[in-house]
């Protein structure tokens, strides 16, 4: 089975985010980018499927600072081919990305394409459904659990309230992964370093990005909350005391 995985980098939300002076884009100068955690789960799911059913995993990623490390890590985990789309993706939306990836997918002709179900900076929907429409393939998102049958896969799709539907989907298809069957594996830095010496990143230049399909951003701003929690400061002892008072007030303890 031939599997393609799309990995994206997203802003690390632990860090402070700031907005450019133009007011309509994120300031990326000092922004730390990390792998989209759902994409990491998609990669893990791909590797699990490869281990179970054999086959190959190709990872495709748009260029960002730090993407080489992400690609080499994917390789150390078991990806067979790592592809970096080169160009300026700093302001590209998912529609543009889907259109840019489409020719590579058509060239590779995978049976299954996995991507994270969403990313924290999605503004024009998530990548998976856009890519599926570009490729005219079926799509299912919020998937946690895949089994391969002859010409189809059996997947588990999540709905609100913990309801799950089991779907059978013909291959080839695009799947938006919510969670891999097991959490993404850890790979030692030494192994990644070793891989850097032996594997090669295929670079594929992208000349034009077609952003059509995204809406026009007028401004970005940090939310001004209409309310804020009453903050409790002090030593752990003092904070615990104050919380006990709150528990009392709301009748949790007497």
């Amino acid at each position: 089975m031939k599997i393609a995985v799309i990995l994206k980098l997203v802003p690390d939300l632990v860090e402070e985010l700031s907005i450019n002076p133009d007011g309509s884009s994120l300031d990326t100068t000092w922004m730390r980018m990390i792998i989209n955690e759902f994409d990491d789960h998609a990669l893990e799911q791909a590797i699990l499927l490869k281990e179970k059913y054999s086959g190959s995993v190709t990872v495709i990623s748009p260029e960002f600072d730090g993407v080489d490390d992400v690609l080499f890590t994917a390789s150390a985990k078991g990806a067979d081919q790592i592809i970096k789309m080169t160009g300026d993706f700093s302001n590209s939306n998912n529609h543009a990305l889907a259109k840019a990836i489409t020719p590579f997918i058509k060239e590779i002709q995978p049976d299954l394409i996995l991507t994270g179900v969403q990313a924290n900076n999605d503004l024009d929907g998530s990548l998976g459904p856009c890519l599926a429409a570009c490729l005219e393939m079926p799509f299912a998102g919020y998937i946690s659990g895949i089994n391969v049958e002859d010409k189809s896969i059996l997947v588990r799709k999540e709905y609100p309230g913990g309801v799950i539907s089991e779907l059978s989907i013909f291959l080839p298809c695009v799947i938006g992964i919510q969670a891999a069957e097991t959490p993404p594996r850890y790979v030692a830095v030494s192994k990644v370093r070793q891989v850097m010496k032996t594997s090669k990143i295929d670079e594929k230049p992208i000349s034009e990005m077609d952003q059509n399909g995204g809406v026009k951003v007028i401004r970005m701003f940090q939310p001004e909350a209409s309310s804020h929690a009453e903050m409790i400061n002090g030593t752990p002892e003092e904070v615990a005391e104050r919380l006990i008072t709150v528990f009392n007030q709301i009748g949790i303890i007497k």
Partner: protein
Amino acid sequence: MSQDIYVLVEHFQGRLSEISSTLLAAGRQLAEIHNSSLIAILLGSNSQNLFKEIPADKVIYADNPLLNEFNQDAYQQVLSEIIKLKLPFLLLFGNTTIGSDLAGFLSVKLNMDLASSCSHFTIEGNIVSQICGGKIMVESNSTATTTLITMVPGRYKLQTLKTDCSPEVEIFTPTNINELRIKTIKILEPESSDVDISKEPILISIGRGIQTKENIELADNLAKALGGVVCASRPVIDQGWLPTSRLVGKSGKHVKPKLYFAIGISGAPEHVEAITNSETIIAINTDPKAPIFDIANYGTEIDLFDLIDILVEKVEGIKTK
């Protein structure tokens, strides 16, 4: 050009889903701004009994056994036909496991603009979306003939749930649903053996900040001391540390406890939407800018590892007095 506002109502097992209330309420406001009609699209099979719950000016109803439950392939084919025929000014979807699967796909297929994660609209009708876990808001607009929007719950809700609506009904017969490439094999209800967190009065909820599986013991101890139950946000469940039945959030459960005690939870929109009906929210997070503090009643930036043991001790001390 029509200025009509369309919404795709979601339903499950004969009932309108909660998100439909958000979509219909937001749609009504937009229809007033644009002086136009609110039109609901309902796809289903023998779902006529839902008409009376839909306070729209018109319901476009497609009835087909293939639309009995959500099937992305069947839904997108039928919706494509309806959208091409009606060219709605705006079409609202839920930013849900259903709406998100459809909106991106249809946007590319039909060459229409899409804005996702919309929380509300400005008085001019501009779209305001929340990204980056709720830390950044984006105001946008579109000049396209038809714009698709996925909405998160929170800002809009129907005042009262009516069951005596009588919208005009237009039956839509899809010309042809091509051979489906997706089939539903079965629907699995959540395991009922576990506690139902949506009914528990005291919830101790843990997020990424708990760091390891072993640390869950801290939350367990606090839950035991307070007579509550431990639940979690998405990252904890995805690590396999707690069963899915304990998931609070968009694809988990919506909760309404007397006390929601959030430990190491940042407050991503997918989580927040599920806890807003809690009576009291207390949040512990070392990040002073964590969005959870915007909806919590009480908060502290103290490290959970410094606090929980002491808190448990104090609660137990009171109980044994």
